[in-house]
């Protein structure tokens, strides 16, 4: 189980809270219409690195709470990191990192998300500082955590309202 998203209760809680903040962030994306696929749905990825078995629970959970965005149906798909990196599809709206990735893998995933102008979200500590667009800030209260540089590079448009309540990382 080591390194998995269910490694311990703290990580599990971060992931659960992360899923909620990810949903809010997706709602705050003002360019959502550009991300609607030809088939008329919004595609969301859950990225894992090795343990596919655990991803099913998360997928089920996210599918339950995120059936639609702005009344557009949502399709949630679990992908391995390699699958994510090799997929030539820039219509996906966002990707949620469900397992802690190595620095090199994370860097590849960040570059891929910037290239695809999509929201990349990681609930794991330190990933936003490493360049992931969105994450979780846990201090006296839980807040969304945004990497402003990646936001600019990826050209994702987030509502100012959302940015106001988020903790921003500028370095």
């Amino acid at each position, binding site marked *: 189980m080591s390194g998995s998203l269910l490694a311990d209760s703290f990580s599990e809680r971060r992931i659960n809270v992360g899923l*909620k903040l990810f*949903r*809010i962030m997706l*709602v*705050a994306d003002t360019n959502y219409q550009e991300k609607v696929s030809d088939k008329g749905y919004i595609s969301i990825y859950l990225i894992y690195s090795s343990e596919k078995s655990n991803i099913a629970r998360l997928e089920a959970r996210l599918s339950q*709470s995120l059936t639609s965005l702005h009344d557009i149906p949502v399709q949630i798909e679990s992908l391995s990191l390699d699958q994510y990196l090799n997929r030539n599809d820039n219509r996906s709206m966002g990707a949620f990192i469900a397992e802690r990735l190595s620095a090199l893998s994370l860097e590849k995933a960040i570059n891929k998300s910037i290239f695809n102008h999509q929201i990349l979200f990681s609930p794991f500590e330190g990933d936003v500082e490493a360049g992931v667009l969105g994450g979780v800030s846990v201090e*006296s*209260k839980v807040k969304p955590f945004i990497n402003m540089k990646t936001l600019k590079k990826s050209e994702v448009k987030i*509502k100012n*309202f*959302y940015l*106001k*309540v988020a903790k921003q990382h500028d370095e």
Partner: protein
Amino acid sequence: MMNKLKCGGRFKSNTVISLIFIIVLVAFLASFVRYWNTVLDPRLRLASETHAEALSQSQTGVLLKAIETKETHQRNRVVKEVIEEILLVSDPSINEPFIKGLSLQVDYDVVDSEQGSLDFSEGVLSCENCFRTEVAILGVNDELLAIATFNITDGYYRLLSHDMKDELYNQAYITVFLFSSVWLVMLVLVSRLHQVNENIETSDRAKTRFMANVTHELRTPLNAILGYTQLFKKDKEIMSSYGKGVETIHRSADHLLMLINDILDFSKVDAEGIKLHQKETLLNDFLNTLMEMTEVRATLKDINFDCVFSDQLPDLVLVDEKRLRQVLLNLLNNAVKFTSHGTVTFSVSLLPEKNTDKYTFSNIRFSISDTGIGIPKSHLKEIFVPYQQVENKITRAEGSGLGLTISKNIIEKMGATLKVDSTLGKGSVFWFDLKLPLGLQSSTTTHLMNRNVVGYSGAAKRILSIDDNEFNRDVIRQYLNQYDFIVDEASSGEIGLQQLDSEKPDLVLLDILMPGMDGFDVIKQIRSNENYREIPIIALTAAVQPEIEEKVNAYGFSDILIKPIVEDELLDSLKTQLALEWVYEEKTEIDKIAFKQSDFTELPDQHIIDALKEHATKHNILAIREMMKTLEQESCYQQFVEKLSPLARNYQFVKLVEILNKIQT
């Protein structure tokens, strides 16, 4: 002056202690302030912030409910009422509202209301000390409906901060109070310690003064006794009739002088105050003197006294003769004291030495054994402990009982260890090994003792002797008259100063301790007179404290002689100060005896003469005496014994050997 210095010292140590306490106190208070500023206050502020965040978060439920009011036209009123209600809620503990101000911004893209209709800003919006929090109000589908900005009161922070500061102040007051108490106690203790120290120093100075006075008073009459015995020893008529008596008086007085010096040593308590003064010593002479002195005591107790001196002992060694004699006499006297029958054996032997050292050093073992009462094994260590043996029944027999401690310390000072082995009822043996540097053989041949001074060349010198003690003046006069000095006497400093002008002496012998003007006052007067700035003035004193010697040098004395005055030392000093050239006696009576071989009716056999010569070479006085005693019984050798005995009696071993060399049987 002394009191001023003491007060200064006490003030200084009090200041140092106070300074240390003030520094520690300031450091303590600074750390207190620092602890508040860097640890407690930030922690308290963070806790208050968290409290404010939680409080804000708890209000989002009612706000969400108000924003989601279904009737659009009612929504504005409901939201406003809810905000009013939130701003009303107060905390009785701080007696003011929790939330001082609230501002609501709604996302009208999500909330179906007229633009700006739900944006409220109520209460205190710019509050410097308030905790400002922003809370997102999320819809059912996680859409961000609004952001509520709260200004939460810092009342909690102030209340807790006040309570904690009070607690800290209380702790600080208690600590400062305790600290000040310790400070005060320290000052009192140090002050008392100073007082005790001052008392000890005063008592010590009084003791030293007392010891100095006592020894001075004892040495003064000894000066007369030893002075006269030295004069008598030069008188052949007296010596031929009362030689043994004079010798005994002289030795006894000399021993008494040594004891007085020992008392001074005891007053120094430990060996720290004892300084060694090495000088070239004729080992055989030194040992023979010890032997003589002990033999008398042994004879009185009717016990045997054996001396075993190795033939290989060096003639001349460098040693503090006085201190070594003090130790050996102490051990020999103890051995005799605690032996009621049997033998006391004094043996001195040469120990093997490394090749590299054997030409410069001699490793000599001194051993004193007896067949006395012995010491129990359990008491062997105690006998060297200062004052311990005073309570010891064995060593308490007579004397101070501190002799062994002093002896042990002196031997340690000489770089050796005094060892003891004893069996109760069978006897004891004390021994130590000394590594002594060898002296130069040549220096012995020119010693003044070997030649008789009869006068000096040049015009007669006039000497002024200033001393309040008549006997001392008399001894000095008799000493000097022998060599044709003109001696003027003065019984006080004042008279001495008058005689200085009338007699115009070439040299002044000046006693230091005199009633009225003392030696220092007199020399001050003399040196202030331009005519006597350069006149040699020799200080005579029975006080042996180092400070007296320093003062003597400082006052411009030419030399210092310690009483009892030794004639040779006086002559040496006069020679130096007056640039004298001594005239020596051409032929002594003893020489004359030696050369008239025809006077001897009969001479002993050559092997007896050779044996006598060998004993004389080794300065073995006991063996010589034994042989003389045997020869005396033969009437034919009467003349031989009569002529040579005085030489042996006066330890004139060199002369004895010279004469024996010239005798041919």
